[in-house]
Structures are given as structure tokens and as C-alpha cells.
């Protein structure tokens, strides 16, 4: 499997890279909290290579073992990357598919055997905090003192009930990708992708008229609770100043004009055959883009696999932020995982709690962020994570991601957000399938979300 081989290769490169870079970091003394920690660790054992031999000989204490729970194979790369620079702590990656992750995690927390570190999809953060499951990471955040986090991440991404319970681990944002060759074929300027709803419609119409391609691979309201109604739809609402619910979390605002405008935009796209079926159960939007049957696709930030699957597309594609209504501000959904420590770890074993905190420190360091960006293919929480040679080389793709990280929105945070996806998904489906007008559909969604908010 190409994908897997690539991952192994990347892991190899990552391992090699980390060794080299660790050396540089030590020499340069870049003053980062976690590098200092590493230096100290190395000092204890009298040099990395020696420590391992010492451990092998049985004279040193064996490293503290902790488990990192993540949702997808590539994230396993965090374990070797971290272990490379830490002799006193050994991280083991435990990968469980997303759908099952939280059910298992809940069971584990309930039984008192939760993993030490968890990559938790950020939209679940409030519910887990509400259940008293997560340790307070505020002191750790203050101690690290990084001051270059991307703006939208604090407080929304990390904070619930005024307390920081998770730090941004790897960030995913929503953007669209486009095929520059197709743009040229359609008579469009490949260097200025459409920015407003109207421009987007015009460009799509031009592609439809002048080429054989379907303009856009789109999905908003497919099944499988993947959350595309938040990930792809909400940025268009935010762009017009709209919101899912008000600040006080007492009332949904999804029936207001920005949401109606956004839904009408998609309805036009769909009715004029400018997009693939946005209610399809095949929720993957990239495959038709990769095999060049569409010229554009709504996408997550995880696109590096296109390089292997279709180099000719990869060479000639661009990324752009979602369109906005006239006078709005382009937006993006900043999702992804927060890194958290279950509260019970703090209670059960101070030693493991410290080890877990060390992992989090590392994850926020340049070294950890490099793993996020280069080995795994997601975005880092801090600006310095995007100020690397690797990102520089790929600037044609990363420039828009950086803009998305600055201009985007963290998810609407609420313990019942998962429950609210359902009414929104249903409303989009009904409007797009022509069962209801956008106004009717969104007004129904509003009243359904209101009743969820009012359940307390």
C-alpha cells in the first residue's frame, strides 16, 4: 500500500531528521522550554548513546512508559519522534479509529484505566471537561509561556469553563483546493482563485461551460457523523458574521441571514450542477479531485498524500480559503485534536502525570510541531511551527493554510455540540434536496438546536 510505505519512509526520515535536529537545537540553545528539558535529560544519562547502553546493562532505571491515544495510523509517528529525544520516558502509540475512540475512552476512564495522553477531537473537549475527566493544564500552559499561538486557538480551542484543559495538538483547517490547469482551460486566472460567493459561482459556471470537468467536489450533509456540516458549512456562515449560537449559549442563530445566504449559495451550486452531490454518503471530496473529474474540492488541511497518488495534480494545484459573501471575511474551521491528560492520571500516578506533561511540552515545541507538519501532515499550533524550511519550500500551499490559521474560527464549543450537528445536517439535507426552502430548513434547525441548548 503506497500510503503505508510512504508513512514508513517518512517515519524513517523523521527519525533521522530528529537526531540531526536535536543536535542543532542543543548547540544553538534556542531557549525553548522543551529543549531545556531534553538537555537536562541527556545530562542525567551522560549522553544519549550511553544512556541506552546503560539501560541495557540494567544499571539505569527503566523509562516510565506512557500511552498516547490517537485516532489514525500516521499519528503513531509521534511516539518514535518523542522517544528519540527522551530516555526517561517511553511513549507507546495506541491507535483507535475515531468513531470508536471515545466510546472506548469513556469506558476506560470509567474503569480507571485511561491512557496517559489523549489526542482528543477538540469538539469533544467541553463534554469531557463537564464529566470531570480531564486534568487542568492551565499551570503547564503558563509555565511554557509560548506567546505565538495562532489567535483563534485561545481561548476557544483549549478552554472550557475558564480553565485550560487541553492544548492544541495538531490542527486541521478547511480550505478548498483547485486545479490550475483546469482553471486555465476554463479561461480563469489560476493565480487569483475566487474569493466571494459570486466569484465562486461565476468561476464554477465558466468551468462548466468551457471544460468537461465538474467544477466542485463538495459534501455538506452526508451521513456518518463526520461533521462536514460544521467543517465545510460553518466557515461560510462565519464569513458573513453569523454564528451557530449566541455568546450566552441560550439561543441558536442559525436561522439568521448569514446562514441563509450561505445555504442559498450552496443550493445554487448544486441546482446548477456546479458541484457533486453535497448530501452524498460518500463523504470523501478529494478522490474526484485527485482523479481530475472535478476542478476544485472542499478539503481538509491533510493533502500531502496527493503528491503520491497524483503527482501531476500535486504539481499544479493551489489552495484557497472558502469564499465569503460580499463584504465579509473569509474563514476556515480550525478543528483537529487537543492534547489532554485524563484527570485520573493526575490522581493515580504523579510520576506518569509528569511524564504526560513532558510529552505535551514536547508537542508544543519546535521539534514536536515539526513532527506534526512534516511527518503527519497537519498544522502546528504556533506560528513558529510554520516558520521552517519545509514550509518555506511549500509556500504555495502553506500560505493559505497560514492565513486560515489566522483568520479561521475554532469550533463552536458546547458539551452538546455533537447533538447539534444532527439538526444542522438535516436542515442542509432538506434544503439541498428541495424538501424545504433554506429559510424553512434553518428555522427548523434553530428550534431543534434551541431545545438542545435549553436542556441545560
Amino acid at each position, binding site marked *: *500500500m503506497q*500510503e*503505508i510505505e510512504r508513512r514508513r519512509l517518512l517515519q524513517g526520515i523523521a527519525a533521522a531528521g530528529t537526531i540531526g535536529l536535536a543536535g542543532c537545537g542543543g548547540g544553538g540553545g534556542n531557549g525553548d522550554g522543551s529543549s531545556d528539558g531534553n538537555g537536562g535529560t541527556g545530562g542525567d544519562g551522560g549522553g544519549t548513546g550511553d544512556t541506552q547502553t546503560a539501560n541495557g546493562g540494567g544499571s539505569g532505571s527503566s523509562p516510565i512508559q506512557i500511552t498516547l491515544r490517537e*485516532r*489514525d*495510523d*500516521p499519528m503513531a509517528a509521534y511516539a518514535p519522534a518523542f522517544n528519540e529525544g527522551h530516555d526517561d520516558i517511553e511513549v507507546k502509540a*495506541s491507535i*483507535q*479509529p*475515531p468513531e*470508536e475512540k471515545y*466510546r*472506548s475512552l*469513556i*469506558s*476506560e476512564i*470509567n*474503569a*480507571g*484505566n485511561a491512557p496517559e495522553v489523549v489526542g482528543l477531537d477538540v469538539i469533544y473537549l467541553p463534554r469531557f471537561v463537564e464529566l470531570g475527566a480531564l486534568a487542568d493544564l492551565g499551570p503547564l500552559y503558563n509555565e511554557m509561556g509560548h506567546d505565538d499561538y495562532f489567535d483563534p486557538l485561545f481561548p476557544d480551542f483549549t478552554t472550557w469553563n475558564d480553565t485550560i484543559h487541553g492544548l492544541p495538538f495538531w490542527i486541521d483547517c478547511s480550505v478548498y483546493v483547485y486545479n490550475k490547469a483546469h482553471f486555465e482551460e476554463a479561461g480563469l486566472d489560476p493565480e487569483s482563485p475566487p474569493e466571494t460567493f459570486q466569484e465562486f459561482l461565476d468561476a464554477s459556471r465558466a468551468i462548466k461551460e468551457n471544460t468537461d470537468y465538474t467544477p466542485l467536489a463538495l459534501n455538506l450533509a452526508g451521513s456518518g457523523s*463526520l461533521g462536514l456540516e460544521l467543517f465545510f458549512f460553518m466557515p461560510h456562515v462565519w464569513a458573513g458574521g453569523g454564528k451557530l449560537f449566541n455568546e450566552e449559549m441560550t439561543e441558536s442563530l442559525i436561522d439568521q441571514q448569514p446562514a441563509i445566504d450561505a445555504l442559498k449559495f450552496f443550493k445554487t451550486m448544486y441546482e446548477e450542477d456546479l458541484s457533486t452531490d453535497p448530501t452524498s454518503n460518500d463523504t*470523501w471530496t*478529494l*478522490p474526484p479531485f485527485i*482523479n481530475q473529474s472535478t476542478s476544485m474540492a472542499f478539503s*481538509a488541511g*491533510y493533502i500531502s*498524500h496527493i503528491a503520491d497518488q497524483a503527482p501531476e495534480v500535486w504539481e499544479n494545484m493551489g489552495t484557497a480559503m472558502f469564499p465569503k459573501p460580499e463584504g465579509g471575511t473569509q474563514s476556515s474551521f480550525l478543528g483537529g485534536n487537543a492534547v489532554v491528560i485524563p484527570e485520573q492520571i493526575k490522581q493515580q500516578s504523579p510520576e506518569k502525570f509528569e511524564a504526560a506533561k513532558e510529552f505535551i511540552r514536547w508537542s508544543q515545541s519546535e521539534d514536536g510541531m515539526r513532527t506534526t507538519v512534516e511527518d503527519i501532515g497537519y498544522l502546528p499550533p504556533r506560528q513558529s511551527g510554520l516558520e521552517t524550511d519545509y514550509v518555506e519550500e511549500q509556500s504555495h500551499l502553506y500560505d493559505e493554510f497560514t492565513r486560515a490559521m489566522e483568520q479561521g474560527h475554532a469550533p463552536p464549543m458546547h458539551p452538546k455540540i455533537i447533538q447539534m450537528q444532527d439538526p444542522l445536517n438535516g436542515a442542509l439535507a432538506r434544503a439541498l434536496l428541495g424538501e424545504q426552502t433554506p429559510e424553512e430548513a434553518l428555522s427548523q434547525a434553530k428550534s431543534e438546536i434551541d431545545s438542545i441548548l435549553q436542556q441545560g
Partner: protein
Amino acid sequence: MSVADRLTGFLDTDQGGLTLAQVLRYIAVLIAVLFVLIPLYWMVATSLKDAAQIGVFPPNLVPDPATLEPYFEAWDTGPWGQYFINTVIVSSGATIGALAIATPAAYALARFDFPGSNPIYLLFMGLLMIPAQILLIPLYNLLANLGLVDTRLGLILVYSTFFLAFSVFLLHSFMTNLPESLEEAARIGGVPEWKIFGKVILPLVKPGLTATGMLIFVFTWNEFLFALTILQSEELYTISVGLQSFQGIHGATMYNQLFAMSTLATLPVVILFALFSDKFIEGIAGLEMQ
């Protein structure tokens, strides 16, 4: 002749010669066979296509070129050999476990008249109705306390328990149908009680045991909700858990590989059924006797 009569005649004659009814019957069977075969064919055909042939429209009805590559690629994505071994262990363990416990229970309920026999039978029927998912979290809790989380034994015990009521339900109906005189004769002849169960009853319900066992085996072979929750180490995964890994969240599912492994996963059970199909039917047939 009424319509109903025609219909039953069409379905249920055994006259010789190729009558119209018989032709229609063959057509009905043909449609059924096609209905069954098309999705199966599509699964196997897709598993023999390379990635470039996946998702194209119009679809390639026949893989061109046909390649075994997806099988090799998929096999390399995880320790599939180990998954198969695990699945065999878990399914066999659960089958044996459930039967070993359910058979004496069914025997007691079917062949003895004792105070409480009716409520106990109803209790088993009731247990059969439990939607197992509702017990997931407390069951995990229990297994964690017993140190059985992330063990094959834990999963075997869970499956055995869940299929206990099912097995009692099926075996009970086999056993109620055996002639009363059997045990009477044995008892009068002074045959010890354990021999009556072991040497008289058990051989007679063997077909029932085979049929029930096969059903348990098939269902546990494919179960994934509990397997996924209880097993956490990759080296303990069953096939159905392994199959989940093809539905990654960050890329398109590798359909050809998923279907390749699905074909491999289905094959052992299909072969098992093909081999024992007569015994299986014979076993199930025990159910019909009053």
C-alpha cells in the same frame, strides 16, 4: 383454482416433466441466485482491480487487468495472519464455551419438570431480548476489574454469555422433541444420570449442537462492536476489527483492499458452511418437530 392455490402450486409441486410452473420456478430461483450473486461478485471483482479502476464510471464489469495486488498490499497493512488466528481462537472458544454451558441448561429445562422451570425458561427468553450494546460500558468496567480487558479470554467470555440465551433457546427446542421413553428406559435400566445426559441425550442432539455452534461461530466471526471495545492491542485484533482500519478518516477508503480482505474473511466461513451444510440443515431440522 384460486390465486392462492395457483401460487402454492407453483411453489410446491413435485410433478415430473417441464411444466410452465416448473419453468417459472426455475426463473424464480435464477432471480434469487442473481440477487445473491451480484453483490458477492462485485465484492470479489473489486478486490481484483487495481486502484485506477476504482470508482470509474461506467464501472469495469470485469476487472481489467485482474490483479491479486490488492490482496498482497492489504495483507501488508497489518498482522493479518495474527488477526485470522485470533479470530479462530475467539470464535471457537466462544462457540465451545456457549455450547458447554447452554447444553446442560437446555437439557434441564427441556427434560425435567421442576419447580421454577417455567420462570427460568422465561428468564432465558428474556435475556435473549437484551440489546447487547446497552451493556457495553458496565461490561467493560467489569472486565477491567477482572483484569480481562484486552485479552482474548475476556472477549470469549463475553461472547459465550451473550450467546448463552440464544443457544439455550435453540437447543431447548431440539431437546423437547426427543421421545420421553429414552431416559425412562435408561433410568429403569439403572444407567447413572450423567451417562443418560452424556451417552443418550448428547449423541441425539449432535445435529442441533452442530447447527447452533455454526451459527454462533458465524456471528462471533463477524462481531465488531465488542471486539473493538475490549481488544486494544493490535496483536489481539480479530479480522472484523482489522477491517475497520481500511476506513481511514483522512483519505478515501481503499475499496479494493478492503474487499480483498473481506473476501478472505468471508471465505473460511463459507467453506465451513459448504462442508457442513448437510449437517447444518439436519441440525436445524430438529427444530421443526413438535
